[in-house]
Structures are given as structure tokens and as C-alpha cells.
């Protein structure tokens, strides 16, 4: 079936009538094909073995919708898979809600749906239920996506910030700041944007392998908005322990660093979409590192620091390249590009 290049979403596509039906049957179902979804029931039925479930939801808004390394569709699938993955579960099924603007091109929608379908399939996750709404032009920056996800918690996963103790090591599975700097540079039209690529990826394969093959993982989180700085500060605050990280051990791509320096951004506070931070016992740190480095999403994994006893207030401290110390603050709001 072909779509005319000029075909666009109309408000009526969200009206529940014939156009809605066509949208679902002609554009959505073929891209996401699976038994549960094709049944088009009011809710999806899932068969699970006994055990406990993890459940999460997130909404995705991004400008530009297509960026080097991904698009809003891939982001919406990976983001929710990653939330399930770092909670120690194997993702099972996702829901997908689209809020689309009047006038949005079908050609773009199809590309996004294609990407959603492909990302879900390659991660063995089904999109089992969904919804589509349309809104007036200008009300949704093109398209907004919400996904919710259910995962089955792995028996081996006993994760909790209260399990963290002094001496535990902190691992990250690769370079930081790639996603955020790609988006910012593309938005600002910076000339080296083509050399930047978002790290957008689904992490469940790697996190499940880690949980199944090692026993020392105590806590995981994906450093998305607010970047590594926000994640480490959250861990420090809720775990009531200080954290010490080594600047020289933190993997940062050179172009990402250059872009951040030029625009006056702090790479530590820039979003990632294919990274996790794991707090692991010192005994299992090397094993975890090895597993990561043997996985395509962990080739540049590194032990970046450790949990230390807190003095009076849980702080994240950085040991700098020159051997100095400074704190890594919880990022605050939006950082603005600076003058010179």
C-alpha cells in the first residue's frame, strides 16, 4: 500500500470513525504486527508466569523528531524498555499512545511507526495496546508519544538504594552526553553536528545478562534528563552516602566534549538515552565490567568511581584530572548557551 507524499493527518483521524480505523489498519498495525495487538481488544491480555512485575510509563517530546542515531519512535520504545531494565526486569510488553497534530505528514508518521516496530521487535518486546488522538495544528510540536511498559522482574534482581555501602563501585556502560549534545547541536545548527550521534538504545539485553551472570549488582539507574550528575546526586541523596568519581575514568567522546565546551554546557548534566549507571559490590566490579565490554552497548564501559562514607551531607565529588577535588552539583533547570 502506498501513501501519497502529500497525505496528512486530519483532526478526523482521531475521531473514532472510518478515518481512525484506516489510520490504525493501514498505518499502525502493519508496522507493529503481533497477535495481541491485532486482536484489537479494549485491553491486551498477557500470560505471565508467577513472580513480580515492574510497570512504568513515560512521555516523549523531542525536537527535532529525527536526529542522528534515532528518532522519537525509537526513543519512546528504548526509554521505557530502559526504565524497566534498570529496575531489574525483562521487558515484556509496551503500550503506545500517539498524540498527533493536524497536518502532520503521513510519510513522517510511517517512518516513526516503522522505527517503533523495528526497535520493539529487535528487543523482543510487543506493543500490545495503544491509542491515537489528534490535536489542532501547533498543539503538539508534530507528535507526542507516550509508552507504558510491563516487565517481569528477574529472580536474581534484588536492587535497592538501601543496599549500597561504602566501597561499592560505580560502573557506566559507555560515553556520556552523546544524546543531549546531538539534539542540542542539531537544534542550534552547529557545524560539527554530523559527527555527533545519539546513544539511543535499549539496554535490557545487557542489564539482564549482568543480573543473571553476576550477583553483586545493588542498584541501577539510567542517566537520562539531568545526565550523570543528576543520577549520581539522586543515588547519593536517597542512599545517604557520598560518591567519589574520577574525571579520567569517565568516558566522553571528544566531539561531544568540544560541542559542550563551545556551547557552554556541562557534559555531566547532559542527557543520555542508552546508558545505565550501576552500583556494584567491589568483588563483582571486574566481572561486571568484563560482561559490559563484551556487549555491543558496553564496549567503552568503565568503573568511574565509588561510594564513600558521607561526612555531614551526601555529596558527589569529582577528583579532577589534575588531582583537585570539586563537587558535582545536582543540575538545575535549563542551562543557557553562554556569550563567548
Amino acid at each position, binding site marked *: 500500500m502506498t501513501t501519497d507524499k502529500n497525505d496528512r493527518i486530519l483532526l478526523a483521524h482521531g475521531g473514532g470513525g472510518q478515518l481512525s480505523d484506516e489510520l490504525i489498519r493501514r498505518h499502525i498495525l502493519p508496522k507493529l504486527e503481533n497477535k495481541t495487538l491485532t486482536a484489537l481488544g479494549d485491553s491486551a491480555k498477557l500470560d505471565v508466569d508467577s513472580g513480580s512485575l515492574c510497570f512504568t510509563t513515560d512521555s516523549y517530546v523531542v525536537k527535532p523528531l529525527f536526529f542522528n542515531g534515532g528518532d522519537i519512535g525509537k526513543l519512546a520504545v528504548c526509554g521505557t524498555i530502559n526504565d524497566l531494565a534498570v529496575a531489574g526486569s525483562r521487558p515484556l510488553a509496551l503500550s503506545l499512545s500517539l498524540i498527533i497534530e493536524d497536518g502532520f505528514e503521513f510519510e513522517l508518521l510511517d517512518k516513526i511507526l516503522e522505527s517503533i516496530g523495528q526497535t520493539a521487535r529487535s528487543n523482543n518486546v510487543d506493543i500490545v495496546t495503544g491509542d491515537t488522538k489528534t490535536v489542532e495544528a501547533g498543539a503538539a510540536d508534530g507528535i507526542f508519544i507516550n509508552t507504558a511498559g510491563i516487565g517481569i522482574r528477574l529472580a536474581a534482581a534484588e536492587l535497592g538504594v538501601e543496599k549500597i555501602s561504602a566501597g561499592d563501585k560505580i560502573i557506566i556502560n559507555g560515553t556520556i552526553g552523546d544524546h543531549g549534545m546531538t539534539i542540542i547541536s542539531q537544534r*542550534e545548527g552547529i557545524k560539527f553536528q554530523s559527527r555527533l550521534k545519539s546513544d539511543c538504545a535499549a539496554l535490557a539485553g545487557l542489564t539482564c545478562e549482568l543480573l543473571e551472570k553476576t550477583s553483586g549488582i545493588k542498584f541501577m539507574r539510567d542517566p537520562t534528563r539531568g545526565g550523570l550528575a543528576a543520577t549520581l546526586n539522586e543515588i547519593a541523596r536517597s542512599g545517604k552516602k557520598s560518591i567519589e568519581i574520577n574525571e579520567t575514568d569517565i568516558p566522553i567522546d571528544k566531539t561531544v566534549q568540544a560541542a559542550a565546551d563551545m556551547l*557552554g554546557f556541562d557534559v555531566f548534566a547532559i542527557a543520555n538515552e542508552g546508558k545505565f549507571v550501576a552500583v556494584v559490590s567491589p568483588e563483582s566490579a571486574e566481572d561486571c565490567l568484563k560482561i559490559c565490554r563484551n556487549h555491543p552497548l558496553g564496549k567503552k564501559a568503565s568503573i568511574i568511581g565509588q561510594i564513600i562514607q558521607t561526612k555531614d551531607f551526601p*555529596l558527589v*565529588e*569529582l*577528583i*579532577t*584530572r*589534575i*588531582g*583537585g*577535588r*570539586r*563537587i558535582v*552539583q545536582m543540575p*538545575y*533547570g535549563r*542551562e*543557557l*548557551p*553562554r*556569550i*563567548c
Partner: protein
Amino acid sequence: MLDKIKKSQDILASTCEALGRQINIMEVCGTHTVSIFRSGIRSTLPEGLRLLSGPGCPVCVTDQSYIDIVLQLADRDDCIIATYGDMIRVPGKNGSLETKQTKANTKVVLSSEDALQLAKDNPGKNVVFVAVGFETTAPATAVVVKEAAVESIDNFTILSGHKLVVPAMKALLSGKNHNIDAFLCPGHVSAIIGSGAFVPIVEDFKRPCVVAGFEPLQIIEALAEICRQLSAGIAELKSLYGAVVTGQGNIVAQNIIDECFEPADGYWRGLGKIEKSTLKLKESFSRFDAFKRFNIAEIPGEETSGCRCGEVLCGLIEPPDCSLFGKNCTPLKPIGPCMVSSEGACAAWFKYGGQERN
């Protein structure tokens, strides 16, 4: 690299001990401030050595009256304000560009070229470029003023808030703060004005001036060089920034500044009125001068109550000495410009922590 750092640290330790007193070195560049905080240099310095963040952040040194003028222009229906990002949050008497009702009239630009383009794209509006910054950004402003003249882009004006570094250093030494022992001079400003521009500071005021780039190692080496001079009782001009900085500087950039601008007396936050310290458009380009186009007189602004940015900029106090620091004044809810700008001393201190937190 670590060997070189160690060597410089040893010099710092021994010279500071030999001097046996508190030494105050001022940096006059926001990029230095950030690099110093971000690399944790402060935590490695001997106790008697204090680094002061001087008037080097373009947003911070801008007097409140200037901000108020920008806010007034933003209220006009016929104006679009084109500004660098960090200016939009600086509070004036009544709010900032960001909190204004009229914020639709404000456009953040990344370069002066973008501002001129905005004027070309909006022929029915007066585009006013908020031109702040030191000698490093002034050439870029001059370029677009000339371009506007050639292409007769008459709906484009600039509100020049450009400032000159050396007059501020002199003003500090001759008035506000005699306790500054030496200056760490900024590499990129020096590349434009030439290291020779600091000669009066060395000769007339007998203060060592060492030009350095922004790599932490070079900064530490510059500090060591300063302390070596201080302990030897001499004041010299030295550049560690290599070939980028020459005595004369970048003549092409200086010429283009001279072509469009002339030095004029002007107001600085905290430092007051300084003779020949700001850049004003020359008569031949006065039709692009927003002060003239909109008939604006610049009068000194009053400091926001309680904010001690002025004293911070003069190196008289450190940010935590301000009772609002970290409590009422944070980067999320900044009261003064030193907390707004990512290069401001208060923001850097808040974000990276000062010595007291280590």
C-alpha cells in the same frame, strides 16, 4: 602532565611559604573562572593563596541601568530584542527578559550574524542587538554593523554594552581594591588586544601580569610564575599562551573595532563609572546606535537590594559572604547577574563548591 603540575605546585607551596602572607591573585575572565572551579585547582592551592574572580564575566559587569534599558525596549511593539542566551535571565528593576510579558519580542541568538539576519527577516520591526562582551566579542559586533551599513539594513541597531578589560583593572587598583597582588590575564582577550596592553599594570602599578590559556595545567603554571615573581619582588609581563598571543595582538580585529567604535566613559556593575572603559559606536555609524535611535540616556543603576555582586566583582568578598548566597539566591532563582551567568563567580561557587566544601 602530572609531573608538570607537581612541579608548579611545589613552586607555589615554597614561594607562598617564603612570602608568609596572604596572596591575592585575580582572574579577569569568566572562562578562567569556570576552568579554575571545574578543574578543582582551588582545592590544590596552598592555604595562603587566594584566587579572586574579578570583572571578567560580561553579563556580570553589565550595569543594571543597561538591563533596564533593554527591558524598556522589549516593551515596545516595534522592537525585537536579539540577545545572547545568558542575558535573558539577568534581573533588572522589574523582572528579566525571561519573565516579561513581552518575551515574545526576545530572540536568543548565538552570534551577531544571527541578529543581523533577524533584522533582514523582519523588515517591519526594529531589531536591537544586545551587544555585550569584551574585546573578544566586539569585533563580531563591528562586522555586522559594517555589513548593515553596506546593505542599508536600517531596522538594525545595536545597544553597545561592550567593555574593555584593562581600564577596569586599573580602576580596581586605583580605587576599589589595593589588595590585588597580581593578575592572571585571559588568553583570548590578549590574543586580540595583545599582551602589551597589560604593560601599564606592570609598570605603573607594579603588579605581575601573566597571560594563560584555559587548560588547567597552564593556569597552574601561570599561578606558579606569578608567585615566583612576587617572592622575587618583581613585576613582569609574561605570556604562557604561546604563539596565539603576541605583544601587538590581532591588528585586523583591533582595526575593525577602531573603525566602528571609540572608547567612552561608562558604567560597570560594582565599579561605577570608569573613564574610557566602554565602546560606543562612532558618529559615522550612529544610525545603528540604539541609544541614539531610541533617544536613551544611560544613567547608573541601583544595585538590587541585598545583592553584593559589585563587591564580588571587585574581589572584596567571596560569594558565600553574601547572606543571600545559596539560600535566596541560587541559579534557579538568581538575584544578581553573578548567579545568572554560568561564568559568574556566584554560580561557579554554587555549582562546583569553594574550598570550604572540600
